[in-house]
């Protein structure tokens, strides 16, 4: 194999003018984290609502919840990304559409919304599974004490369901984080995109990808450690 390794490449200035290649990758990392966190907020809130809807007695609420999950789960993320970025502005009134297209950081906002809606479907499935895993008597007991449906969810079902689904929710969070890389197709300069452009400018393919790989692995480790600590702090004495 005749590949010319050059690990010093990270400290050479990038052709973008300001900073080194290392700075370039770190800025990518920052956008990855920012996009992941912002979209997770949407995914968590919307997903919880959709998931709860699928467990309500109302048939209509269940149908809306199911339709949402099926819709967002059965279209590839990349296609959804294109729909939000290329198609939606065209379908809106012309004025609004062009204003959206000219938005600074449009790829970022689009990615956040797209990932938020996409991941919400997966969060919803976890929330539903968590609520359905609780003994039926818990809902009855809450109701029997005079709680309204909303209070039963707020004080009885959700606190327990979220605890049960913490491990799979951690995976969903990490999936969401990894999925931010799909947004490079609409021009978001996140970590994978930055590694790719470093490779294009410097021809040091493997150094660039190795660095990106290490950074992704590090985020994974940090998230898993944080989730373990969270799980420990939320654990209930006497349970399992």
């Amino acid at each position: 194999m005749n590949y010319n390794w050059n690990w010093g490449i990270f400290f050479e200035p990038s052709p973008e003018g300001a900073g080194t290649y290392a700075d370039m990758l770190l800025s990518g990392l920052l956008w990855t984290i920012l996009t992941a966190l912002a979209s997770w907020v949407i995914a968590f809130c919307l997903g919880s609502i959709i998931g709860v809807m699928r467990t309500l007695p109302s048939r209509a609420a269940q149908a809306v919840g199911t339709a949402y999950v099926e819709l967002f789960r059965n279209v590839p993320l990349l296609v959804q990304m294109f729909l939000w970025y290329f198609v939606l502005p065209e379908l809106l009134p012309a004025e609004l559409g062009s204003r959206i297209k000219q938005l600074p950081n449009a790829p970022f906002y689009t990615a956040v919304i797209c990932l938020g809606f996409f991941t919400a479907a997966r969060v919803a499935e976890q929330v539903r599974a968590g609520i359905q895993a609780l003994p039926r008597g818990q809902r009855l007991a809450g109701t029997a004490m005079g709680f309204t449906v909303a209070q039963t969810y707020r004080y009885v079902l959700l606190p327990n369901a979220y605890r049960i689904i913490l491990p799979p929710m951690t995976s969903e969070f990490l999936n969401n984080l990894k999925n931010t890389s799909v947004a490079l197709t609409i021009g978001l300069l996140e970590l994978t995109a930055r590694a790719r452009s470093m490779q294009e400018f410097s021809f040091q393919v493997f150094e660039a990808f190795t660095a990106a790989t290490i950074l992704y692995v590090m985020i994974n480790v940090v998230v898993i450690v944080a989730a373990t600590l969270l799980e420990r702090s939320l654990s209930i004495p006497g349970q399992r």
Partner: protein
Amino acid sequence: MLANLDLGVIVSSLPYLFGQGMVFTVTLTALAATMGVVLGTLLAILRLSGIPGVWHLAKGYVELMRSLPLVLVIFWFYFLVPYIGAWATGSPTPIQVGAFASALITFTMFEAAFFAEIMRAGIQSIPKGQTAAALALGMTRAQVMRTVVLPQAFRNMMPLLLTQTIILFQDTSLVYVLSLTDFLGAASKVAQRDGRLVEMYLFAAVVYFLICFMASALVRRLHSRVAIVR
């Protein structure tokens, strides 16, 4: 707006979209799923083997793949495969492999990690008594795995393996980043050539939705049948 949608562009490009694009997507999905399940099962067995070094390696590989974005893995293999080819054949220069072969290797290697986790759960779900009973009959460890454990594990995990294959089907759209002509790639090329992004991307979304929706409905039915038998 929706009123000036041009459906003609969809109709006229159907042969291209399906004849080339969808054939590529389905072929890639089927081959990568088959090879991925085989490799994944192997990884699962290695990981459960308890052989020092071996199970660490298997675990490390699975964990690494699962912590990386697919897009990055696609880039990795796209550039790595020619060098691996050169190393394997002793060639002094990187070997050019076709775009399809590169994509196939990538998806096989990537999805194998996910199939491995499913198969690991499947193997572990078989009661220890089954292995004990087979060993008591005089079978070797390999025979027990092949004739007793794996058939049951496959059967139990079939719905999950198929669901993962549907995800793989969706994931293949990411070969877009290599400018390959899968179904989405074909739609995208027509969209850009004719300036008809709205029609083509909406149509692609509808096609993906219908296929995945029907496939997952079938898997659900299979799942309930398996559940009753057990």
